[in-house]
């Protein structure tokens, strides 16, 4: 179910501006890969190229290859909508659909893609909410609006919504930055459980978080504002935090930045 991602020589643009340059990396299946780096270095931009969400922004385009197992995501015959069904995403700020109940939020991905049948939907909703560690908290109020939950619960609802369509890969763009430490812990535990089934890529500003949850860590940096961001190095998280290969990584991790 989980798939490997192979990125080779990827450039990412906003119209004429090159935001990320020459990224080559491999994301292993059934593992957690963390992206760290200063603000504006292109981690989130790069993450969004992995499910073709980057091109939703006017002027957004990409050069290079992103292979999901044997399939190039940017091949001319590939439907971006199909890519996004395979590669799910969780955003920085919890964004449940405000017009929908908790149940409908989780079922949204299936319902909007034409899946019918109450029994099947019921199963998927329960399974996904259990997968997101939210079932026990909301099982008695599934028909209540999703926006009425707390921030941490909303984010887990969004994770449940993302895994309900059974993606192969789950991208997370700073999923805990709007949450308190307890909710953060809940999400981190959840990431640990999810990695047995999914390939997970997480962008984070919190280095302890990267160290806690990830198997591999990629460090992005940019030479100066206005210059494109680059992948500096990617390695086992242990190595990146204890014995990085590049001095810039060590400086960033130990706080001697700039």
């Amino acid at each position, binding site marked *: 179910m989980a798939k490997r991602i192979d990125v080779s020589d990827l450039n990412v643009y906003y119209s004429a501006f090159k935001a990320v340059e020459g990224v080559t990396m491999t994301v292993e299946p059934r593992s957690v890969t963390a992206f760290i780096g200063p603000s504006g270095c292109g981690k989130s931009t790069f993450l969004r190229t992995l499910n073709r969400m980057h091109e939703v922004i006017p002027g957004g385009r990409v050069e290079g290859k992103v292979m999901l197992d044997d399939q190039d995501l940017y091949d001319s015959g590939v439907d971006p*909508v199909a890519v*996004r*069904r395979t590669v*799910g995403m969780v955003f920085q700020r919890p*964004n449940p659909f405000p017009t929908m109940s908790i149940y409908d939020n989780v079922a*949204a991905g299936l319902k*909007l893609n034409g899946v019918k049948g109450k029994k099947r939907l019921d199963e998927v909703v329960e399974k996904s909410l259990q997968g997101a560690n939210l079932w026990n908290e909301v099982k008695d109020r599934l028909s209540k*609006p999703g926006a009425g939950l707390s921030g941490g619960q909303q984010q887990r609802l969004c994770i449940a*919504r993302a895994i309900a369509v059974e993606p192969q890969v789950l991208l997370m763009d700073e999923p805990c930055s709007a949450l308190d430490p307890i909710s953060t812990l809940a999400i981190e535990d959840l990431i640990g459980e999810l990695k047995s089934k999914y390939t997970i890529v997480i962008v984070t500003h919190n280095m302890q978080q990267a160290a806690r949850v990830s198997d591999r860590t990629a460090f992005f940096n940019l030479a100066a504002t206005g210059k494109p961001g680059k992948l500096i190095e990617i390695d086992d998280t242990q190595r990146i935090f204890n014995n990085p290969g590049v001095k810039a990584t060590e400086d960033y991790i130990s706080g001697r930045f700039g």
Partner: protein
Amino acid sequence: MTTSTTATTSATSSSTTPPASRGGASTDLGHKARGRAFKDQLARVVMWGAFLLALVPLVWILWTVGSKGYHLLLDAQWWGNSQRGITARREGGGAVHAIQGTLIQGLTTALISVPIGILTAIYLVEYGRGRLAKVVSFMVDILTGVPSIVAGLFIYALWVTTFKFQRVGFAVCLALVLLMIPVVVRSTEEMLKLVPNELREASYALGVPKWKTIMRVVLPTAFSGIVTGVLLGLARVMGETAPLLILGPYTKSIANDLFGGLMPTLPTMINQDRTESLQPAVDRMWAAALTLILLVLLLNIAGRVVSRFGSVKK
């Protein structure tokens, strides 16, 4: 010894100075706060004043129309009869012909303008990039500024002069459509822009195509706002008089066929009875005005009830 005393005194004086200056600073701060409190009060008074001032004509109109028009509305024949065969000299008769005409024309107009308006707004907000979008947006701006009599004359020129058709209720609707579309486009546009982009992205990220995202996520989120905009447009159109005078002058009998000749409406009834100096006609004018206000109010309430369903849940 002496030096140390001086040092101590200077130390004491310097240590006593800060509290004094702090005290000064705190009264200073208090002074500033008083200044701001005054401005706050002033702004409050001005705003309440403006609010009450704006309320005066509204209450005045409602009171005048209500007090002069209510007694005819209490009569059952007002809601059951037309003015057929009733001269300005005589009392009696009802407004059912005009009420039906206004409702039929208003709803037909809405039926044509709302889909066009909403689809245009969706194009402008969700799809429109580049030159075509700019042209469309500019055209809507121009249409917003078209005086209603010009819309009426335009349809007259098209319908009667060019195509040689008879003046019918549907021609009135076409003129009203021109007036309603820009209102619907602009208000829907504003509402769609208010839908956070995060919701669209959340939907895309689930592998939902763009059109379905618009239909199932964006439009429902903006639904109640869109309904409000449609109702505002409808209220404007139902009270519109100028195109009606050109395309559909007043008649006294019930005429419910949009393609079957002149159609009476409340605005034209008001205008007709205004020109009479006899009391029964004047009474009917006020009653018709009150009926129009109530009609718009009812439609608004109905719209609010409708927009409750499917709107953002709290």
